[in-house]
């Protein structure tokens, strides 16, 4: 996480007791983080080594679970598909996200203020909903497909193959890369780029050989994150993988809940442990690649001024790229959802006008659980999101400009939960809340949902915070140190005020992520903890697709309102 230049501050010398007292907040922060992450993860590990649910009296310790899944051809097929999809989407999302960030940050592209929130749309709509939107609009009998059949006599695309899923997933994750890449670019003075431009490089050459290599740490981090997200991808393959029977790891996990008749936790846990094992080398690789982080340090004391690069004749290419991206990832799926929300039925030979209705929305508002879900989701995103950002900030300070073993442990702690599919980590949280007595009274409150969300999205949020922290050049902190301020005081009086704008931006991004999260909440869902994302999964299973479409649309509108309001009141997405 602490990837840019970060000379460690020397430890504060002082009387032993005092030093201990000053180290206490940090130790406490790290301990709490470790507890929140390791409690569910170790339960999963333990469960994978048993033959029955861990609370069952007949359980036996052993490796049978691993033996079963390794002998199951479905596991290997799922693993293959997952690796294919995860690498495919990384290959699509990272370059595209990087180039989009470059165009948005550096070029004189018109109407950037409008385009930017649109680019982020896929990151705050639940992938399950987006995938369903694609089915309605571009599936075999979707309305664009019907149009295409009329025009070209056939549908030149397909949705249900593994490569198609990789492409769609790749496009959906462009915003994840974009956010990190553009905030890294913001920190980069544009003097080097101008030099390249003067030397005759085209904008593309500037992007490829100057700007993007300079933000390598951000790109590498987002590659790893996108790959992780690819391994745990659930909603998309649930909707698009079913028709042709393509399994991925998380849908295989889902299959295991029924394959043996009763849910086989030990098998599910074993699969999750395999995924976590897959991600360990990735994290190590990332660390190795970034070992020599100093060479990326371009912000020293005074940041260079950023000047827009004139794109010249490349402008149209850039505009076309942005528009194509928005068309495929935003317009196509969202138009599908909007249409579905307002009709009773659709498809081949159906006149949409005859099928128009508002009943779907009536059904949402007639149902108290749905209105409670809307309310809870908003609460979780706004107030919950703020508390989450506060926690992330505390963790950020605990590792900020420290390069000791503890920071390295936190680095891994932060990434690990995201490697476990949301469905299972949610189940593990249910176990924690059930079997750890101090927490049991909180199980049926929205707190359980909040904790699970905050742990699952640690990697995403921590990166936002630490990149804000990195922006504060060490000189300022060192100056405060020279006049005798201690670490805690420097954090409170120098660093924190300086990153305020960055924290507000992170809050907004965390809000959006929390609004869309869906699989983590499935098992924690209950009276008092209804959230839209998990309700959507449950309704989807139950078959109330009318209500799914209407509720999903309401969710999207809510996030838009939040986003527009925040931007209007001066919150910047990135500082």
């Amino acid at each position, binding site marked *: 996480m602490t990837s840019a230049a970060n000379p460690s501050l020397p430890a504060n010398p002082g009387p032993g007791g005092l030093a201990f007292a000053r180290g206490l907040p940090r130790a406490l922060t790290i301990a709490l983080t470790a507890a929140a992450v390791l409690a569910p993860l170790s339960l999963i590990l333990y469960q994978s080594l048993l033959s029955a649910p861990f609370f069952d009296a007949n359980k036996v310790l052993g490796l049978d679970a691993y033996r079963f899944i390794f002998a199951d051809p479905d596991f290997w097929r799922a693993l293959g598909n997952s690796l294919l999809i995860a690498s495919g989407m990384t290959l699509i999302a990272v370059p595209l996200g990087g180039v989009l960030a470059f165009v948005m940050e550096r070029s004189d592209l018109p109407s950037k203020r409008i385009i930017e929130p649109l680019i982020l749309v896929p990151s705050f709509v639940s992938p399950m909903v987006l995938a369903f939107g694609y089915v309605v609009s571009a599936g075999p009998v979707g309305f664009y497909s019907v149009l295409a059949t009329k025009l070209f006599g056939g549908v030149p695309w397909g949705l249900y193959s593994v490569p198609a899923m990789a492409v769609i997933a790749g496009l959906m994750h462009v915003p994840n890369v974009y956010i990190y890449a553009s905030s890294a670019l913001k920190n980069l003075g544009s003097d080097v780029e101008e030099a390249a431009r003067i030397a005759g490089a085209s904008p593309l050459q500037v992007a490829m050989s100057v700007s993007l290599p300079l933000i390598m740490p951000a790109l590498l981090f987002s590659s790893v994150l996108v790959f992780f997200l690819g391994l745990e991808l659930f909603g998309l393959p649930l909707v698009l993988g079913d028709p042709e029977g393509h399994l991925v790891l998380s849908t295989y996990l889902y299959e295991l809940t029924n394959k043996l008749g009763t849910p086989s936790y030990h098998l599910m846990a074993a699969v999750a442990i395999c995924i976590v094992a897959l991600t360990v080398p990735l994290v190590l690789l990332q660390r190795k690649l970034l070992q020599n982080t100093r060479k990326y340090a371009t912000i020293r004391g005074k940041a260079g001024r950023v000047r827009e690069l004139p794109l010249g004749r490349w402008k149209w290419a850039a505009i076309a790229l942005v528009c194509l991206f928005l068309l495929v990832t935003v317009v196509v799926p969202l138009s599908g959802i909007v249409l579905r929300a307002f009709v009773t039925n659709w498809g081949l030979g159906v006149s949409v006008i005859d099928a128009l209705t508002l009943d779907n929305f009536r059904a949402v508002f*007639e149902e108290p659980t749905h209105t409670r879900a809307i309310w809870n989701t908003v609460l979780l995103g706004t107030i919950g999101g703020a508390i989450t950002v506060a926690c992330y900030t505390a963790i950020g300070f605990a590792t900020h400009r420290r390069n000791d073993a503890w920071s390295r442990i936190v680095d891994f702690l932060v990434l690990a939960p995201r490697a476990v599919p949301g469905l299972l980590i949610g189940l593990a949280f249910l176990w924690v809340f059930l079997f750890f007595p101090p927490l049991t009274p909180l199980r049926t409150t929205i707190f359980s949902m909040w904790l699970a969300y905050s742990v699952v999205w640690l990697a995403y949020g921590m990166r936002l915070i630490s990149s804000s922290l990195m922006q504060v050049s060490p000189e300022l902190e060192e100056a405060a140190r020279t006049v005798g301020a201690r670490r805690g005081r420097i954090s409170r009086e120098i660093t924190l005020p300086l990153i305020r704008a960055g924290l507000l931006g992170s809050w907004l991004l965390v809000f959006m992520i929390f609004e869309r999260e869906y699989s983590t909440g499935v098992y924690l869902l209950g009276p008092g903890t209804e959230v839209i994302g998990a309700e959507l999964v449950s309704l989807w299973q*139950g078959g109330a697709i009318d209500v799914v479409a209407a509720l999903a649309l309401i969710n999207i509108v809510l996030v838009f309102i939040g986003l527009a309001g925040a931007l209007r009141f001066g919150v910047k997405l990135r500082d």
Partner: protein
Amino acid sequence: MLTRIALAALAAACLPAFAQTVPAGYPANYAGTLAAAEKEGKVVVYSTTDTKAAQPLIKDFEALYPNIKVEYNDLNSTEMYNRFIAEVAAGQGAADVMWSSAMDLQVKLVDEGHAMTYVSPEVPKLPHWAVYKNQAWGTTYEPCVFIYNKRLVTGSDIPQDHASFARILNTESAKYKGKVTTYDIDKSGLGFMFFVQDTKYFAGMKDLERGFGKTGYRVYSATGNMLEKVSSGEHLLGYDVLGAYALVRAKKDPNLGVVLPKDYTLVLSRVMFISKAAKHPDAAKVWTDYILSARGQKVIGGAVELFAVRNDIDAEYTAAKLDKELGDKVKPIPVSAEITTYLEPAKRLEFLKDWKAELAAGAK
């Protein structure tokens, strides 16, 4: 005198609002159960029937017993099972009543000793196959149906029985390539249960499985998905679909056609039991009795749009009407130990293996 009669009548009319009277035909000591239930004040129900569908039941129950609130949780069948066993193991049993369409999982929980024994006064009115050890009761009578797209499938292509479904698959496999759908046998416990029952009644099951393989059938874990895709025309035929949902959708969706198979129609019954660990055991009894009562069944067959399991009910969807239409071709899946046979992993995997072998043979 007149005023006195009027007053008495008024008092009688108001009476139910203050204290519950024992329903007709119930034993006199039921008054004690009612009083205890009202003292408990609520009943927690875990159910696979979604809240929207169950709302009329909840409202009617709360109108009848204003002092007992219903805390209703809708979950899918596996989530429900997962939560129940985890909560019971943690000593925090939250559900008083379990009500699920996963008949086999329910019976398994009963066999593992999670259910309370209770002789409901409504039992004599239920068909004998719907009562299990006085611990679990079948509450609905939902046919398992075929669905088709009305715009695109017509005439003799509409399968009327299992044999014609198999024939259409095998003789017109080019036309139906990728256009036939059913439950995913790996992911859907419901689908698995239907297929196992099919092997009991339909000798040509292997032809059907090969036909599925030949047409490259599409499978889903959720009923809604199948209804949506047959309605849109992405798929044309659906096999063994939960009929209650299909009929409800067909009522307002002109694209969707529903067939009750003529040779035999499987019938699923949502199973209800009272948790042994119930925190509101008396309220749970009152709720269960209500669901099995003529009044509750009338709501199930009416506004809830599932089928009433009792034969003495007049409503839109009832067992009586189905029986009249199909006679002895109706084959209810019994609430019995038999249906848990395939929850034994080895047996289940064997069934899956055979199923897949036939699919592969058909695909060749």
